């Protein structure tokens, strides 16, 4: 006797439909795996040793990790209140604000670096921030975080807004009648219910920040031991002909990204949020 399952009885048309969807999943996943395997086969042992023993490369790895994590944290700090405000409140310029949030997703990342460079080097406000306030960003590690934030924060904000949109307002209303202030209903009800969407936005932001290359080359450059991150290291290594080393670094990047994304997904999908 067959065990009962939670799926409906399916005819041959349903099986064809399922097979068609799995076909696309298989093609994409296999294609990416083939590319990674090609890299693995191309890289020799010497290149791996070079990568793991180079203090500049390890420094670039550390820079990539902490700047992208800090960027993600700052982006979420902005995304949660912004997503809630854009989802719940209607204010003059709401549509414009909503559109501006999407701009960094639409324009090429290179533009973010160029714009930041022009702002800090060519405008009075930018120069005042750098020179008088002493907050130097151009060609500085701080600039990496700023550049990553401009290029990637929109993903977190957009995801947070969508997540709050999906939270039924009736939950908040009930919380208000049970003694909550608006902040209380946000903290105890809306935020836990939007948690998965916010985490998803965080993953996207981190991924974009971790792999960012073009705007960083323009805004902070790639100074060994100072502003070099993994993505710019790959560029520098391949530009001087060290293709095996560049690919070994790329594999390291892929490996870290895979572990991070899987770990966050596993944590994000865990048990009930505590009140």
């Amino acid at each position, binding site marked *: 006797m067959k065990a009962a399952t939670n799926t409906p009885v399916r005819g041959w048309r349903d099986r064809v439909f399922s097979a068609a969807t799995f076909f696309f999943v298989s093609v994409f996943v296999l294609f990416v795996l083939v590319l990674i395997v090609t890299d693995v086969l191309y890289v020799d042992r010497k290149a791996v040793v070079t990568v793991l023993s180079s203090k500049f490369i390890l420094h670039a790895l550390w820079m990539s990790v902490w700047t992208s994590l800090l960027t993600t944290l700052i982006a979420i700090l902005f995304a949660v209140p912004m997503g809630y405000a854009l989802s719940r409140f209607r204010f003059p310029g709401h549509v414009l604000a909503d559109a501006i949030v999407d701009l960094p997703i639409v324009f090429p990342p290179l533009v973010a670096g160029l714009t930041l460079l022009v702002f800090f080097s060519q405008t009075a406000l930018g120069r005042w921030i750098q020179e008088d306030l002493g907050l130097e960003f151009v060609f500085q590690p701080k600039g990496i975080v700023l550049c990553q934030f401009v290029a990637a924060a929109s993903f977190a904000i957009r995801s947070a807004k969508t997540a709050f949109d999906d939270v039924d307002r009736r*939950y908040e209303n*009930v*919380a208000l*009648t049970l003694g909550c*202030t608006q902040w209380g209903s946000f903290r105890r009800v809306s935020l836990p219910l939007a948690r998965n969407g916010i985490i998803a936005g965080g993953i996207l932001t981190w991924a974009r920040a971790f792999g960012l290359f073009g705007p960083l080359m323009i805004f902070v450059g790639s100074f060994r031991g100072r502003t070099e991150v993994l993505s710019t290291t790959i560029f520098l290594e391949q530009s001087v002909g060290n293709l095996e080393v560049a690919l070994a670094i790329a594999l390291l990047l892929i490996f870290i990204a895979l572990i991070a994304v899987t770990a966050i997904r596993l944590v994000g999908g865990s048990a009930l949020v505590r009140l």
Partner: protein
Amino acid sequence: MIRAEDISFHVGTFQLQGLSLDIAGGEYFVLLGPPGSGKTIFLECLCGLKKIESGRLYIGGREVTGLEPRMRGIGYVPQDYALFPHLCVERNIAFGLRVHGRAETKVTEIADLLGIRHLLGRRTDGLSGGERQRVALARALVLEPKVLLLDEPVCALDEVTRQEVCAQLLALQRQLGLTTIHVSHNLEEAFSVADRAAILHQGVLQQVGSLDNLLRKPKSEFVARFMRCENIFESRVMGQDACSSNTRVEVAGLELQIPGRHSGKLLFMIRPEDVLVRSGSALDGQGENTFCATLVRSRDCGGYVRAELAGPVNLIAHMTHGAFAGLKAKHQPSVAVQLGLERIHVLPI
């Protein structure tokens, strides 16, 4: 206990217009109306979830018009209950206590009262409709409000569970002495719980009173139809009866008498259960408002038989099974119909 004074609110093209209502302490009040009539909006205004544009609201003698929802001292059960999906049953019920920093011992007490103690450790997504309803009720009652607002609390339940839950709601309301507003579009529900009721239509309060009053003395054609009176007739006054204080009217060529003095055109009704139907042979020697009709169709509705009668005017009559059997309608579809003067109610046009 609850007083609404001339409150107005609009959203889109819908408008709640000058609604005034007085509900006594400890009363079980049912707000009836078709979907889209503004019942939920009125409850939300009372909760403070919608800001009224004009008028005043009082709860327990205190004006609450400008107060936040959390300060109004109300228990609110929204339609479909809105149980927090990220919290288990126990934490749902304890939500208000936690917000106020109070001890959670009351959770088991209220769970016992509603018979849901065994559900406390469960997630909310596996609960049945009746269980969800009781959890939502427990969540609202745990803070011991004086006023309970229920928005269609049993509409998602099956017929049998609905009757049980209505009986439980009434018993609980009596036990705790809660002033309750129960929003519904279902007349049976109202009959099983209401001390008094009101009918809302397109944002306007049509009539407030006991259910018997709404049933027998509706103030408009809408209320009469909402209370399921199908026998509503437009008539023309022919003159006053010389021997009584009645008015003679003409409906589709049939002359009838209506209680009271009237002139011009008028609308009157008689409830289906008040239409007297007898076998055709009993027609001889009858008084006023008696005429012959033919039984066109009949339907067993459980507690009564619904008979459709065609004659000078078409009528619906609700009869007991015994009375219907006495008609011998199978062999003799012709019947005598009498509209008792005291049962006729004149509606304002």
